[in-house]
């Protein structure tokens, strides 16, 4: 009984002291007392969007882990919250605007969907904040670039250059290519880049089948592909749809009839859902692979194994890196002023999960490796997650004049 009374009294005294202190100290004095810049990061992810919710959840988990583990070593204070864009650009913009207007939000990460990322990029740009995205569409750091927007992953241009071109070199006789493409900004960007590379390398694009974002049944599209008799089936689908289309391609015997390339895979979680048997012999493009021999990657693998009892997936590492870039900017600028942080992030060089990485100052695109991998035979796997072997790592980015970014 006595203990409860004392605790309550102590609690009341502490609360009163905090309240009086808060009232007595002006905001400037309080921030001066807190020497570390305060950087509250908001993750605007597609947490409930069909098809990419799982990817978004992993991205979110990665961002949160970065905030929890990096703030102290970087000498900043940082918090993390999540909002759900639902995969809808309109809803995403509205929720981000609420964060900005009602909670003073300035620092955002997110954009597993390119369409959402493009919309949110514009909204954050209007408010003078910072947005670091994982969206793939070229426009994010190209024609639709913004002073406040940064991107960590390689864009669709680099993904196609890093997969289609090296595969053309490896398989020169495979000249007839058929593509299956989701009908939205990301898919169109992959398709136009693939068509360009095929034309440049003397291959024939024998057909394309567009599919909707809600599609889960691909037998019709695969029948179209079979009818075109291609040497290579090139898949531009994303996340859950990639799994479905690849699974059904194998079911229809396409794996035995032609080479299959997945230009943009979503990482380890996707490979687990596909399984080793399905992946065996399939070519895959990837932003990240946990087996890459780079010092920071080794540390990340250790951290994720310790925290989640599993090596990191691309989505987790991507989320982690988006938050890290904002935090690096604050640490380098020694400020939470977005303008100073942007200046600090432009040209930033650091050791990342793919080796040495840097942010181009003229379009805010991170320069990093993109990997061409091939599925291992199940018997050749060293452990349960050893699905792929790295065939090539490529850094391919549009030159300044071709990138089309004029807003920076």
């Amino acid at each position, binding site marked *: 009984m006595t203990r409860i009374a004392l605790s309550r009294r102590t609690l009341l005294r502490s609360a009163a002291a905090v309240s009086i202190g808060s009232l007595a100290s002006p905001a400037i004095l309080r921030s001066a007392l807190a020497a570390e810049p305060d950087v509250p990061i908001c993750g605007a992810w597609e947490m409930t969007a069909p098809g990419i919710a799982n990817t978004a959840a992993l991205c979110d988990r990665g961002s949160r882990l970065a905030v929890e583990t990096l703030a102290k070593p970087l000498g900043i204070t940082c918090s993390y919250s999540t909002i759900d864009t639902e995969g809808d650009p309109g809803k995403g913009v509205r929720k981000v605007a609420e964060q900005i207007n009602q909670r003073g939000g300035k620092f955002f990460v997110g954009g597993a969907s390119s369409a959402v990322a493009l919309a949110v990029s514009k909204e954050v740009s209007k408010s003078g904040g910072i947005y670091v995205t994982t969206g793939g569409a070229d426009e994010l750091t190209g024609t639709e670039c913004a002073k406040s927007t940064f991107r960590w992953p390689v864009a669709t241009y680099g993904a196609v250059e890093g997969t289609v071109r090296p595969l053309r070199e490896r398989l020169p006789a495979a000249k007839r290519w058929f593509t299956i493409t989701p*009908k939205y900004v990301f898919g169109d960007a992959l398709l136009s880049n693939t068509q360009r590379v095929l034309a440049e390398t003397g291959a024939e694009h024998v057909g394309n089948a567009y599919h909707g974002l809600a599609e*889960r049944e691909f*037998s*019709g599209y695969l029948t179209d592909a079979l009818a075109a008799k291609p040497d290579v089936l090139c898949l531009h689908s994303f996340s*859950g749809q990639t799994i479905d289309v690849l699974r059904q391609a194998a079911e229809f015997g396409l794996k035995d009839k032609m080479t299959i390339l997945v230009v943009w895979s979503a990482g380890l979680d996707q490979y687990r859902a596909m399984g080793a048997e399905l992946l065996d012999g399939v070519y895959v493009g990837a932003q990240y692979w946990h087996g890459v021999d780079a010092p920071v990657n080794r540390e990340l693998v250790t951290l994720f194994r310790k925290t989640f009892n599993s090596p990191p997936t691309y989505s987790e590492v991507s989320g982690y890196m988006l938050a890290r870039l904002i935090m690096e900017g604050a640490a380098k600028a020694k400020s939470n002023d977005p303008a100073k942080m942007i200046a600090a992030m432009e040209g930033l060089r650091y050791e990342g999960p793919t080796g040495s990485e840097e942010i181009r100052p003229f379009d805010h695109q991170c320069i990093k490796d993109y990997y061409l991998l091939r599925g291992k035979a199940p018997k050749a796997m060293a452990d349960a997650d050893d699905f792929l072997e790295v065939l090539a790592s490529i850094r391919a980015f549009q030159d300044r004049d071709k990138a089309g970014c004029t807003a920076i």
Partner: protein
Amino acid sequence: MQLLVSQLLNGVGLGMIYFLVAVGLTLIFGVMRFVNFAHGVFYLLGAYGVLTLSEHGANFFVAVVGSIALVMIFALVLERGVLSRVYELPPFFHILSTFGVTLMVEEAVRTFWTAAPHRVPTPPGFRGLATLGPFFYPNYRLVVIAIAMVCAVALWVFLERTRYGATIRAGAEHRETVRLLGIDVARLFSFNFVLGAGLAALAGALVSPIRGVDPNMGLEALAIAFVVCVVGGLGSFRGALVAALLVGIMQSLATSLWGSGASLVAYLVMMLVLLVKPQGLFAGPGRSTS
């Protein structure tokens, strides 16, 4: 020609899966006048049941049967414990309660199995392709079509040639008369609800090796089931079969002509039917099941 025939075959395969999902919904509405927004949940749980039982070493077809049994038990508990209490309330309460059940089950699935997609391997004896001249089709999909057809015939025989089936049909046309004849309508409703849930679970279980398993699959199935029911006529067995095949074939053919809009074709067909024959293609004045 080969492309056309292949697409028709794809459409039949797709349509038979749609039929399995939709027929349960149409039976439930036909007899009970109950709009069941939780129907997709049975499809979802059927797929997850197979996933879990397969992972625990069960043979695929044993897992299918086990999963259906578990879903039917769940459906019985749900119907007796929750839904039977709202039968007499306005349709708004039917929609609210069943949609609430859907959200709760989906979140439970995300909690227990995570939001990640999972794969269910094709049963070993049914991998590969069946070929006939220039045509070929995956063995497993042929098995799914065959099972769906057997179910359709068995269901038709049950509804048209058995006493209990006659009672269900009578209940669909004149519920009050059936009640006045001393038939236990509550039991009839429960049987009908559980039968519909079992068919949806069968569809989810069979489709799991084709499209994998993920928490969103229930709502996807529910949407297409409603389209099929509206096109065929709510409460019509024959309507569900014809509409499912129609939608499946139209969708499949559309992939070659308008790929990005193929998934919209089902809704376009529904719009057209609503404009021309709002009660559905096969719903007569008394909503006969045949």
